[in-house]
Each structure stands twice: as structure tokens, then as C-alpha cells.
């Protein structure tokens, strides 16, 4: 206990000295966040300085082993670091699918060589990753994917198409599900492959969404050559890796339910709800749900770190968190009234409220729909019958 108190004191002092003032403001949108990568784009020098300071301590991934670029912190220490960062409103230094999705899968399924090679680069934010899961014919029924990966002796040859590939146009590498055995039952012929997006034959095309943003792409593979040692886990057993990774993806997406600020929605909308008792009531009920979900998130993370969480629990978190986030943005739109409808104006910051509201509608679709999550909870936690 005394050690943890010392750790808290030292962490607080270090953060005070090293977290630039500009990095203590909430992230305004996805483009305002630091994503790292081969050719990183920093909004300002503070963003670069903050990433480098945190990466040097391994604190972009505080609970990963030091050998792989992590901070080597215990679960208790990691929680204290998060609390101390939240206390001063410190931004996440790096937004990264490498950290939240691929990293945990590599830690569990990667070879020692793969871990030593990829993990430290992920920790330092040097590779921006994208995820090649969904295909035009394989969304909720993910295992029916068709992207073909043939063994050509000294390399793999990949052909096919992915869709809803988040930031594929900005990514350096992809972690991708490919079919390596077309004769086997659909779950048994899939492998988990890593490759460079700059490889000849890879092309991407952004998809314009209802929000006016294009965070997702169509991604095409046309005779892409991939070195043999870039499969993670066993050949044809990529589904295990994929499922493990999906748990982490759902955990990450469920974090959206927290809204990204520490106060309640009612505090943020106080002026708007003052003259509208029904809206105030809706917001108050939302805040009950929101604060309760915040407690649930804390409990879930604590249980996860202690190995006490049910393996299907991320599905419940993803479902609850994304439905909550959609409700939050419906209320923000209601409180904003006509102002929130402005799509292109200085005042509305180019339609921030409206675009974010529309963006959240994807939350309950991406990473497995709400219906998929409910089905998983029903069968794997409640043990209800039926495949």
C-alpha cells in the first residue's frame, strides 16, 4: 500500500512536469487525436512532446512488459496512472488500433520474434494499423469471409476485398483475416496475416458516410505478395486470434459509453435544459445510466485485470456502451435545437454536433452489431439454447 502511495505521488509529479497544457484539453474529434505512424502528422509540438515523453516510459502501454516497450506496471499501478491522468484531464498520448486490438493478440499468440519486432514499434506509435475483417459478403457472419491467401512456396499470395476498413487510407500496415483453406469448415480455414499497406497490389477507396466523414474504406488486394513469417498464431487457426482480438475491440468501443469527459451530460447542457423540464428529466435519467455505466466500466476493467471477468463480458459492455453513446448524442442534438442542425458554419464548427451524432449510429454496428452482442450474451453468459 505504501509503495502504491509513493507511486501515486511520483506519477502525479511526473505528469505535472511532463504533460503540456495543450494536452490537458479534451480531444475535439478523431482528427485532433494523435495516431502516430510511419509519417506521423502532429497538430502541434505539444502533441509530439507528450507522445515521446509517455513512450519513453513505456506509458503508452503501461501494463505491457518492459521487454516489449511497455511500462511493466502492475494492474494497481496502471489504475493509479489512469486516475492521475484523468485528474488533470490528460489526453491519451496515442490513439492506436495497435495498442487496443493487435497488441493484446500478439502478446498472446505472437512468436517471440514477432513480439520483439512489432510490439515496441506499436508502443512508440511508429506503425499505424488498420483491421481487415469485414468483407462485402461477410459482415455479421464474419467467418464466411472469402479473401484468398495461397501458399506459393516462399511467400503468400493474397487476393480479395475488405470493407469498412477504418482509416485504411492512412494506415501503414494491416492485420487481416484471410482464407488459407477453402475446403475446411468456414471457421477452420482462416488465418491471421500481417502485411504492409505499401505492398504492390494494395489499394484503398474511402467510403463517404452520412456524417460527411470517411473514416472507413474499401480495401482491395490484387496479387499481394506477403512474406511467410507474417502469420500470427497457427495456420488455419486465425479464428481464435480474431475472436480474442474482437474481445479487446469491443472493450475499446464500449469506452465510448463514457463520453470522454469526466462531468455529467446535465452539467454540460445546464443552460439548455433550464427552460425545458422534460428535456431536463431525460438528461437526468441519462446521467443515472451514464454514471452507473461508468461504475460498470471500472468494475469490468478491475475484474478483467484480476482474471475474474467472464470471457463474453466485453459483448455486454460493447452493447451497453454504444447504446448509451447513441442516446447521449440524441440528447445533445435535442438540447442544441436549430444550432445543432447547422452543417457548414463557423459557429457550429462545421456541424460538429450533427456529424458526431450521425457518426455514433455506427457504434452499434461496427465491431459486431448490438444484436450480435446480445446473442453472444444470451448464449454464452445466460446459457440459453440454440446455436
Amino acid at each position: 500500500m505504501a509503495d502504491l502511495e509513493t507511486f501515486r505521488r511520483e506519477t502525479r509529479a511526473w505528469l505535472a512536469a511532463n504533460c503540456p497544457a495543450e494536452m490537458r484539453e479534451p480531444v475535439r474529434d478523431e482528427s485532433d487525436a494523435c495516431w502516430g505512424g510511419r509519417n506521423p502528422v502532429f497538430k502541434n509540438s505539444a502533441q509530439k512532446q507528450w507522445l515521446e515523453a509517455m513512450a519513453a516510459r513505456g506509458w503508452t502501454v503501461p501494463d505491457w512488459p518492459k521487454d516489449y516497450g511497455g511500462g511493466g506496471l502492475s494492474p494497481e499501478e496502471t489504475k493509479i496512472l489512469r486516475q492521475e491522468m484523468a485528474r488533470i484531464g490528460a489526453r491519451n498520448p496515442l490513439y492506436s488500433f495497435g495498442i487496443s486490438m493487435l497488441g493484446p493478440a500478439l502478446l498472446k499468440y505472437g512468436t517471440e520474434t514477432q513480439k520483439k519486432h512489432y510490439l515496441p514499434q506499436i508502443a512508440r506509435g511508429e506503425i499505424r494499423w488498420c483491421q481487415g475483417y469485414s468483407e462485402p459478403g461477410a459482415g455479421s457472419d464474419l467467418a464466411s469471409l472469402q479473401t484468398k491467401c495461397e501458399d506459393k512456396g516462399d511467400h503468400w499470395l493474397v487476393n480479395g476485398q475488405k470493407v469498412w476498413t477504418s482509416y485504411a487510407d492512412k494506415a501503414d500496415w494491416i492485420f487481416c483475416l484471410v482464407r488459407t483453406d477453402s475446403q475446411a469448415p468456414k471457421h477452420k480455414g482462416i488465418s491471421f496475416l500481417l502485411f504492409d499497406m505499401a505492398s504492390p497490389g494494395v489499394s484503398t477507396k474511402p467510403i463517404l458516410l452520412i456524417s460527411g466523414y470517411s473514416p472507413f474504406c474499401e480495401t482491395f488486394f490484387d496479387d499481394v505478395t506477403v512474406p511467410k513469417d507474417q502469420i500470427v498464431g497457427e495456420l488455419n487457426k486465425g479464428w481464435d486470434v480474431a475472436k480474442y482480438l474482437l474481445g479487446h475491440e469491443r472493450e475499446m468501443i464500449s469506452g465510448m459509453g463514457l463520453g470522454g469527459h469526466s462531468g455529467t451530460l446535465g452539467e454540460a447542457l445546464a443552460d439548455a435544459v433550464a427552460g425545458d423540464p422534460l428535456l431536463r428529466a431525460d438528461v437526468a435519467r441519462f446521467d443515472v445510466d451514464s454514471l452507473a455505466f461508468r461504475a460498470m466500466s471500472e468494475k469490468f476493467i478491475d475484474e478483467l485485470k484480476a482474471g475474474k471477468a467472464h470471457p463474453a463480458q466485453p459483448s455486454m459492455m460493447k452493447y451497453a456502451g454504444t447504446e448509451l453513446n447513441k442516446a447521449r448524442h440524441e440528447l445533445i442534438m435535442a438540447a442544441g435545437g436549430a444550432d445543432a442542425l447547422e452543417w457548414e458554419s463557423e459557429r457550429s464548427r462545421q456541424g460538429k454536433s450533427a456529424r458526431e451524432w450521425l457518426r455514433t449510429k455506427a457504434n452499434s454496428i461496427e465491431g459486431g452489431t448490438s444484436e450480435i452482442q446480445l446473442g453472444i450474451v444470451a448464449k454464452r453468459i445466460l446459457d440459453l439454447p440454440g446455436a
Partner: protein
Amino acid sequence: MPLYLTDDQAMLRDTARDFMAEQGAIRSQLRHWRDIGCKDGFGHGLWKQFAEMGFAGILIGEEEGGLGLGHVEAGIVLEEIGRNLTPSPFLTTAVAFVAAVKGTAHGARWFPGILAGETVAALAIDEGARHRPEAIAMRAERAGNGFRLDGAKQFVVQGASADVTLVAARTDEGLTLFAVEKDAKGLEVEGVRLADASIGARLTFDGVEVDADAVVGEVGGGDTMLARSLAAGRTGAAAELVGLASAALDMTVDYLKQRQQFGKPIGEFQALQFRSAHLYSELEIARAATLKAQQLLDEGSDAAEAMVSVAKAKASRASQLAVQEGVQMHGGIGMTDEHDIGLYMKRDRVLAELFGDANYHADRLARLKGY
């Protein structure tokens, strides 16, 4: 502190679970006392057993003969009470009353009886049909070397069986709490059986004279103690609701697996699977909120007050969903008195109102947050 039960707390839960399932079961307690029309609505024998198990003294300090534990532990017992719909004066006596008088002279007066499972305590707060402690109007005037109480209270749970009732009234100095004994002159107690077969008494105070030492704490200083008592009671009720809802969900899921229609178990139907999974999700969130409120109360945190309201509101709504889905998914059998699921619906309704309903607490949260 991690947001799950410690090993000691998990051990207490196992003990409480076994005890309540064996001694506090619906057939031997709730149905038994209801069917014979018991005027108390609970069994004094079981209350004695609560004392023997140490449950009655959970919040009482070790130096006073109790276990010196906290709201997390009280909640563990309440969750098992909720699971079995066990009628007992535990929530009013060992939680809300003990939290109010702790650290006052009334501790020495009442704790020995509570620890022995002989004393029952009640709280007289509500004056109207809805919980509005801010609007307490009952008066207490100085008279002789004490006070004279005039007014009326209702929804005094265990009020008909209580040896002592904590009464909130206004004096010239402000809100004041009085510990009024059952034989006080001028006190009229009318036991009222509620929908769930518990008793929620109406109390009429017609010039009831009490000594100055009936005052709990300071004259005019009742707000703090009432807040402490209500925080304990509200969090406790949330824990009982979580237990009640868990049992309703378990019972319903079991039924979905076993009941056959159209040649298969109805649990195979996606519509019922989705609704069950949604209910599970709401219930787990309510459980987390309740545990968070209990931990914050035990830490003496400033953040506890808001979380208490979150817990009571969220647990009430999750539990309401659990009993409504429970009865609906049981179909016709769920409408019969013979099946237990309906008893859960009735108890839920009572606990939802006790110490403030979900709307009251959402509104209270909004006020605490300044909007």
C-alpha cells in the same frame, strides 16, 4: 480499492447465501407469515437467527459488540434477502436506524437489543404518498424538559412492530430526529398491509411528549444524521433490489430453457434471447453502481451522495424490468399466486418506492450536479 468483492466479502456472501436460502426461503418465511396473516409480516425467530449469525451487528462497531463492517457487507446480506424475498427488519433496524444513531447516546441504549435480535427499529420520515424528506412538516415544540410531537407519518416500514421509531420533525432550531418508544402516550400506530404482504404503518402523533434525551444528536442537527440514515437505507434498498432482480432473472432464464412451445424450448427464440440479454446487461450495471455507492460510503467520500442516488435509481429501473419481463415471459403461470415470480413483482414495487423512487433520485442527481 478494486470494484469487486474481496475474499472476506465473498466468504460472507457465501455464508449469507446459504443461510438465507435455508432459513429465509419464500415458502417458510414470506408465504408462511402472509398466509397466517401475521401482524408483523415477519418472524421474530428469524430476526434472532440474524443476530446469532452476526448480521444484525454488521454496521455496529466492534467496541460496541458488532462486527464493525461497512455498507458493502450490509449490501451483501441485503442482496441475499432480496433474492429470497426474506421478510425481516434488517434494512430498517440494522442499516438505516443504526446508521442514524451511531455515535450518539442512543447507540448504547439500543445496540444491545439489536445485537441480540430482540429490538426492532423503524423510520418515520414520509408524510405523503411520495418520498419527499425535504418537505417534512411535522412539528416538535419544546414542552417541559422535552418536546411535544404533533403530526402524522406514513409508509413506516416495520412501524407496527418497532420498539423504537426514529421520527424526523421540525423544531424552531431546524430538523430534529427523535427516538420514540413504542408505548409513548398519544402515539397511535395503525399497521397497514402492503401489496407485498409487508406492513407499512401509519403513525399519528397527538401531543406525544418525549424527554429531551429522546433527541438523537443535537436539536436542529437532524439533517446530517437523516442524510446518513437515508444514504444507508437507499444504498441498502438498491442492494436488495439487485438481489431481487437477480433471482427474477435466474428464475426466468431457467423457465426459458425448460418451457417447450412449437416443439422447442422458448429460450431458442431470438426475441426472448435479446430481451433476456438486455435485462442481464441492465442488472450488471445496476450491481456495479450499487457496489460503487457502497464503497464510496465506506470511504467517506464526497462523491458518495450522488452515487447513492444513481444506485437507487438504476437498481429500481433494472429490477422493474426484471420483474416485468419475468412475469411476461412466464406467461399465464406467472399470473398465478402459486408461482413465486409474481411475489417478486410485488416486492419490487414496494422497494422501488421506499426511500425515493427512480424519478426522485434522477431529479436529486440533477440538483446535486447543479442543473
